[in-house]
């Protein structure tokens, strides 16, 4: 038997007895960032493909909420900081080895771009809206003439935004549950899936709704594949990663993860989407909301479980 005791009473707040440096703010932001990335990706992609007429909701309507999502996300990131007045230090350095640094810079680009995108499309949803100043109309015209360029920027930066949220975690070798390169693609896929789910809700035409239902179904399939892959990788790895996997295979996170995230957040909405595609009447709000809530819970569970996984020595 091996027993390890910290006898001098180390009880550093937020570190002992178990790391809890990141509370709700980080997973909430990761969800919003992934969702924003998903929405912007589809909007930009279909503009580049020249399919503006086919996908009006994905291009014009859903992206209207992205500025709010990103501001909410930035707000929660700010709340997470313990030394808040120094937040501007993020923008006095570029550190390539720190995913958090490139995340900060990506947000610096994609947030204003999301505002521009919403501004040049808002009149399609709110036709009575008028800009208060003439120069705003000029600006709208100017940006509209560069719509394809903005679409390209959005596609590239949304992919970076979506994948970096996973890489942020996977770069932490100290937390075995996070330390897997599958996490980047998994978070990206989950972000795209939540974006597609929101498009399913906002789509008016059956064509567009069915298109995003098919996309979401495919993304759910990829997510399930990646989740199986992640656990296969853990179980074939070192003891610390086997222990990390056990948090979900009999450990405290087993029920929340497999029931709430995998079943209610992926399998059930996937089945409902299949029925919907077979023209069986399913209120689209149900599968889409399940996917969104599943995506949110997934971030929370993975953040907290990761903080409790550690090296033993």
């Amino acid at each position, binding site marked *: *038997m*091996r*027993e*390890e*005791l*910290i*006898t*001098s*009473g*180390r*009880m*550093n*707040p*937020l*570190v*002992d007895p178990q*790391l809890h*440096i*990141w509370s709700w703010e980080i997973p909430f932001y990761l969800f919003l960032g992934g969702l924003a990335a998903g929405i912007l990706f589809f909007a930009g992609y279909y503009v580049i493909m020249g399919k503006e007429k086919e996908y009006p909701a994905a291009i014009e309507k859903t992206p209207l909420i992205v500025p709010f999502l990103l501001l909410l996300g930035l707000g929660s990131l700010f709340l*997470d*900081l*313990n*030394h*808040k*007045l*120094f*937040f501007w*230090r*993020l923008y*006095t*350095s570029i*550190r390539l*080895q*720190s*995913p*958090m*640094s490139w*995340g*900060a810079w990506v947000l610096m680009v994609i947030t204003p771009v999301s505002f521009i995108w919403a501004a040049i499309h808002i009149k399609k949803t709110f036709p009575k809206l008028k800009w208060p100043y003439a120069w705003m109309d000029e600006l709208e015209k100017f940006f509209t003439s560069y719509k394809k360029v903005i679409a390209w920027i959005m596609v590239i930066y949304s992919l970076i935004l979506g994948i970096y949220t996973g890489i942020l975690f996977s*770069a*932490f*070798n*100290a*937390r075995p549950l996070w330390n897997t390169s599958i996490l980047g693609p998994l978070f990206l896929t989950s972000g795209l899936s939540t974006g597609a789910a929101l498009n399913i809700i906002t789509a008016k035409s059956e064509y567009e709704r069915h298109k995003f239902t098919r996309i979401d179904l495919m993304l759910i399939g990829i997510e399930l594949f990646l989740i199986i892959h992640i656990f296969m990788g853990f179980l074939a790895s*070192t003891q610390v990663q086997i222990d990390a996997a056990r948090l979900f295979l009999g450990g405290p996170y087993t029920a929340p993860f497999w029931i709430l995230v995998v079943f209610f957040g992926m399998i059930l909405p996937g089945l409902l989407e299949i029925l919907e595609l077979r023209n069986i009447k399913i209120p689209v709000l149900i599968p889409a909301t399940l996917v969104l809530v599943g995506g949110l819970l997934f971030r929370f569970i993975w953040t907290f479980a990761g*903080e409790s996984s*550690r*090296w033993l*020595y």
Partner: protein
Amino acid sequence: MRYAMAIDTKKCVGCSDCVVACQTENNVPIGYCRDWIVEVVDGTYPQLELEIRSERCNHCDNSPCVRCCPTGASHVEEGGFVLVTHNKCIGCGACIASCPYDARYPHPDGYVDKCTFCMHRVTKGQLPACVATCPTKCMYFGDLDDPNSPVSLVLKNRKHKTLIPEAGTKPQLYYLI
């Protein structure tokens, strides 16, 4: 220059003087600590082995905390001291999550705090507070690049280990076993 510390687990009695010395020297807020004592009991009665370790930041050569810091507040000083510049730190907690030894903590003033190897003393030619205080003289500190420094000499003559070398951080706290 590469400062390192060696701690003799055979001599350490776990009195926690190093912990108190550090808290006093560095004005560590009440309820926090930069170093701590771990007792490991191994084996089955009556064949038991006890190891007592004074632990702190390992001032790693390949430090994940410095790598993941988004502002450059976590940095390595000449001599290998891994430090945090308070007015550059935003308190995001990435370095705390990145440390496999859980050696960092959020200071109540907001920035992240940790053992500094008492750089303010070492640059004046003094020993870190914990080493200077240790009543059993079980701690050795010095420059690994100097073959005659106390730490180089003791590492040459004694069997030693580091904590979780498999985490790949190249820790610079050596435990004599």
